[in-house]
C-alpha cells in the first residue's frame, strides 16, 4: 500500500490548495470535513489542557473513556480528513446520504460514550466504518468490506472488527428516521452558512460512474499486505 502522502486523484496529484468544492464533489463532504476537523482540534486542545492541569497537580496522565480504543491508531494518518472523505466518496460509489448518516452514527457514539473523544488518532477509522455501515443500511447495491478496507487503508480483518465494535457501541441502533436525517441536514446546512457558503446539501442523488481504484493508501500502523486488485 502507498502511504497517504502518495495519494493521487486519477494520476493527477492533488495540490494542497485544491478544495473539495473545486472538485465538483457533494457539498456534504465539504461541510462534514470542516465540522470533523473542528471537532478533532477542539478535543485535542481539551486533552492538552487537561494534561497540563494534571501535570501541574502531579496527578498522572489524562484518563479518558476507552470505548473508542479499538478505533485508535498509534499515530495520526497523514491523509487529511477532506481528502479521506473524498477518497471514500470517489471509490465506493455510495449515496451522499451515507455521509450524513455516517455522521449521525459518530454523533450518537459521542453522546452514548461522552468520555470518549474523537481525535486525529481515531477519526479516519470511525469515518470509514460509519460510512460503510450507512451504505449497507441505505443502498441496495453497495461494495463489501474488502473494498471499503482497501479504500480506507486498513486491512479487511481490522475493518470487520471495527464494524462489529461500532455496532455494539451503538447497540445496533443504526436506523435513521427521516425526521432525524432532516434535522442533521439542517444542522450541517447551518454550519455551511457559518462557513460562508449558504447552500443546501444534497438530499437527492445523482448517478455516478465507479472510478478505478488505482491508488492505495494505508492508515494502519503496520503495513498490511495489499488487498487484491479490483478486476474490471
Amino acid at each position, binding site marked *: 500500500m502507498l502511504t497517504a502522502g502518495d495519494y493521487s486523484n486519477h494520476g493527477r496529484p492533488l495540490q494542497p490548495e485544491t478544495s473539495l468544492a473545486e472538485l465538483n464533489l457533494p457539498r456534504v463532504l465539504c461541510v462534514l470535513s470542516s465540522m470533523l476537523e473542528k471537532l478533532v482540534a477542539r478535543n485535542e486542545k481539551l486533552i492538552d489542557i487537561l494534561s497540563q492541569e494534571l501535570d501541574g497537580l502531579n496527578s498522572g496522565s489524562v484518563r479518558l473513556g476507552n470505548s473508542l480504543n479499538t478505533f485508535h491508531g498509534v499515530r495520526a494518518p497523514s491523509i487529511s480528513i477532506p481528502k479521506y472523505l473524498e477518497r471514500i466518496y470517489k471509490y465506493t460509489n455510495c449515496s451522499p446520504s451515507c455521509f450524513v448518516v455516517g455522521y449521525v452514527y459518530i454523533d450518537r457514539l459521542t453522546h452514548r460514550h461522552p468520555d470518549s473523544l474523537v481525535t486525529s488518532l481515531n477519526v479516519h477509522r470511525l469515518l470509514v466504518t460509519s460510512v460503510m455501515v450507512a451504505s449497507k443500511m*441505505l443502498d*441496495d447495491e453497495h461494495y463489501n468490506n474488502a473494498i471499503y478496507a482497501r479504500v480506507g487503508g486498513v486491512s479487511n480483518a481490522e475493518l470487520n472488527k471495527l464494524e462489529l465494535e461500532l*455496532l*455494539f457501541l451503538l447497540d*445496533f*441502533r443504526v436506523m435513521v*428516521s427521516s425526521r432525524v436525517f432532516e434535522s442533521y441536514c439542517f444542522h450541517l446546512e447551518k454550519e455551511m452558512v457559518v462557513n460562508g457558503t449558504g447552500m443546501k446539501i444534497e438530499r437527492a442523488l445523482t448517478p455516478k460512474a465507479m472510478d478505478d481504484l488505482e491508488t492505495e493508501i494505508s492508515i494502519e500502523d503496520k503495513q498490511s499486505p495489499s488487498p487484491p486488485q479490483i478486476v474490471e
Partner: protein
Amino acid sequence: MEKPGGGGVLSAKEAFEKLEKVGEGTYGKVYRAREKATGKIVALKKTRLHEDEEGVPPTTLREVSILRMLSRDPHVVRLMDVKQGQNKEGKTVLYLVFEYMDTDLKKFIRSFRQTGQTVPPQTIKSLMYQLCKGVAFCHGHGILHRDLKPHNLLMDPKTMMLKIADLGLARAFTVPIKKYTHEILTLWYRAPEVLLGATHYSMAVDIWSVGCIFAELVTKQALFPGDSELQQLLHIFRLLGTPNEDVWPGVSKLMNWHEYPQWNPQSLSTAVPSLDELGLDLLSQMLKYEPSKRISAKKAMEHAYFDDLDKRHL
C-alpha cells in the same frame, strides 16, 4: 447487546441450551432453545460471518437495527438480545435471540388445507386486522418490509396472536438513496410495479402482499402462484385485467413493460368465492394496480370489514 469477554457475561453457548433446529436461512440456522437462567424458550438465529469480505450481512444489520426500533409493537416479533460468539473454527458468529413462536401462517394454512377445513371467517378477520396493524406500525416508522408472505408471519395457535418476522429485506424508505433493487420479495406476493422493474417503490408493495395473503387465508391456495417473473405477471393480468395507461398512468414507461396479452378484469369473487362483500371490497383496494391508489395499512384497519371484530385484545 453483549459481546464476549465482558465481565461475567455468558456466551450464547453457556447461556442457552439448543433444543432443536427449526429452520435455516441464507446466513445460518434457527434453533428452538432454552435460556438456562430463566427456563424461557427462545428462538436463536445463528448468523455466520464467514464471508470475511462481506463482514456483517446487510440483511442482519437491517433486521437487527429495525427490530431495535420496532420490537415494542405486539405485532412485530421481539428481538430480546444479540450476542457475539465464535464457532468451532474460531469464526465470529452473531446470535439473535427472539421470543419463540410455535408456528407460522404458512403451516397454519397448510393444516387447514390438509384437513379440508376452512379457516373460520372471524379467525381470518382477526389475523388480517393484526397483520394490517403490524404493517401500519412498520410503515409509521418509515420501514418497508418488502418480503411479507405467510412463512414470515409467526403465530401462536393458542391465542391466535400474529407477529411480523424476518425483516432481513426490510429497509427505511425515508432517507434519499439510490434506486431500490427489484430483486426482492417471493414471487407470489410480489407487487406488479416491482415485477415491471420500478426502481422507486413505496409502502404499497407491502399492501399488495397483504392482499395476496388475505386471499390465501380464505381459499387456502396462493392467489397468484407464478413460477417466473413473466408467469407471475400473467397470473395477475388474467384476474385483474392487463393494465394500461388509463388504469395505471405510467405503466408503459416501466423498465420491464412489453406488449402483453390483453385480458379483461374478472370479478375478485371468481378467485375468492367465499369472501363476503366487505372483504371483497377491502381486497380490491389492496390489489389496485396504481400503487398510489392502493389502500394504506392504517386505512385498511378502519375498513368496514373489521367493524364486527372485537379489537380490545388485538
